[in-house]
């Protein structure tokens, strides 16, 4: 077989594989959206769920998902940022950093149900936080921290050594170089990483089942005092998220329209995650453009 022919076959095979991946994705998306989108309505997106009757919505779950996401990000982003800056900008390669990196790697490959069970034992039981948004947010932090640290570290890595030297050569301290030169330059890529990880957190169910709980008590959306139990902002209330809701309906849902609610919820989840992904790309590109040319 001559090399030209070999090349053609290889390219053909690669196209085939790539096409297959896209096809599977499209089929999945198509199925979920086709069966879910007809269920969507304003009522579905805002009404509370019903346990036995038909006509329930996912308003509370949707709110819970976003609230939990914001809390989890608020906790994990500063820690991940600090860890990444330390690992990439300050730490030298020695056994300490090797240990940290290995730990991060193992943590990132931990099955999320294990993270959830750990969260249950530690936050829910030991620290007596109960099934609450706070427990869930901590569990999600465990789940999210290694991925976010990795992605921020990668973002820092994309900034050339010359930029660091340029900052230092101007008489900036190391810290000033990092905060005033490197971080601003890395913002587009960091932001992309954050939004993408937000998508993963948003769709996470297993880590939340035992921490944030599987019940969604009715909320009073007129009460924004975080100390009231029916306030949406109260971090100590149990909070079933959208992803957990899907899991629960499918395993033990007894409402007559369980199938429809499950399809609708799945569609909402997928649409939200797609939105995260597209926003990440768009915002990242825009920011990069703004920074690099006028």
């Amino acid at each position, binding site marked *: 077989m001559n090399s030209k022919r070999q090349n053609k076959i290889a390219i053909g095979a690669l196209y085939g594989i790539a096409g297959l991946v896209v096809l599977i994705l499209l089929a999945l998306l198509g199925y979920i959206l086709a069966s879910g989108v007809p269920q969507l309505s304003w009522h579905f997106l805002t009404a509370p769920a019903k346990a036995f009757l038909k006509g329930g919505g996912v308003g509370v779950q949707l709110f819970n998902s976003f609230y939990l996401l914001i809390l989890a990000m608020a906790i994990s982003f500063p820690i991940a940022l600090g860890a990444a800056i330390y690992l990439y900008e300050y730490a030298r390669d020695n056994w300490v950093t090797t240990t940290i990196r290995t730990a991060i790697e193992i943590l990132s490959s931990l099955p999320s149900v294990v993270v959830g069970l750990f969260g249950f034992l530690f936050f829910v039981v030991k620290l007596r936080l109960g099934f609450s948004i706070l427990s869930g947010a901590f569990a999600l932090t465990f789940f999210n921290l290694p991925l976010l640290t990795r992605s921020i570290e990668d973002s820092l890595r994309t900034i050339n050594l*010359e*930029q*660091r030297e*340029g900052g230092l050569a*101007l008489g*900036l301290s190391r810290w000033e170089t990092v905060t005033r030169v490197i971080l*601003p330059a890395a913002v587009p890529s960091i932001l992309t990483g954050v939004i993408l990880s937000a998508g993963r957190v948003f769709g996470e169910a297993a880590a939340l089942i035992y921490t944030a709980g599987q019940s969604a008590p009715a909320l009073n959306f007129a009460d924004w005092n975080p100390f009231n139990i029916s306030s949406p902002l109260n971090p100590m209330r149990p909070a079933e998220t959208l992803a957990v809701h899907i899991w629960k309906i499918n395993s033990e849902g007894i409402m007559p329209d369980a199938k429809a609610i499950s399809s609708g919820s799945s569609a909402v989840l997928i649409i939200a995650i797609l939105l995260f992904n597209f926003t990440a790309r768009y915002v990242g590109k825009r920011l990069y453009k703004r*920074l*690099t*040319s006028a």
Partner: protein
Amino acid sequence: MSKEILTTQDLHLYYGEKEALKGINLNFDAKGITALIGPSGCGKSTYLRTLNRMNDLIPNVTITGTITFKGENLYAPNADTVEIRKEIGMVFQQPNPFPFSIYDNVIYGLRIAGEKDKEKLDAVVEKSLRQAAVWDEVKDHLHESALALSGGQQQRVCIARVLAVSPEIILLDEPTSALDPVSSSQIEATLLNLRHDYTIIIVTHNLQQASRIADRTAFFMNGELVEVDQTKNIFMNPAKKQTEDYISGRFG
């Protein structure tokens, strides 16, 4: 020539076990341009980077000997690298403007040092860009990204950025090797303008460049300083055979 501003005595530098600089003794008078020449890997860039402690960034580097700047040892245990680098600025081979506007690039050092007076900053920007001979080309788009400029313009903005923190010494590490001939000659003209006000030390691979702009030239080989003299003498009448071989292209 006026008195010595920077002196190096018996400077050794090791990358791990490997000795890259083998006892350099070299002094610089205030003002004027000194060119460091020599074949690749001879240690001239390494030497240049010891002068503002840029080698501190590289792990596993050991440095012995003394470098004295205005009477103070740069490698004293209590030496402040941040202060040193404000006095001894550096321009690199690859133009490395920050991904911000031209204006922000030039005032970055000052702004972080706490300068807020808008009028003063504006004045510094204009003065530095004029000194770097790039003002006329960029004055109408100061607030556009420096990355949109050509390589030569970027490099001159980088020079302006260093000038803005008013250093005494400017180190340049092959500043034109990534640029086209036209941009290179603009940079050379810029340096010739600056030589009366600053002490300039430039590493260059381009012998013509050294002969065109340098007052003094130092020839490095295999981690040693072979010869340093007035540029004219180095090129017309070198004292060492190695220097003559290198200058005339008979490299042995």
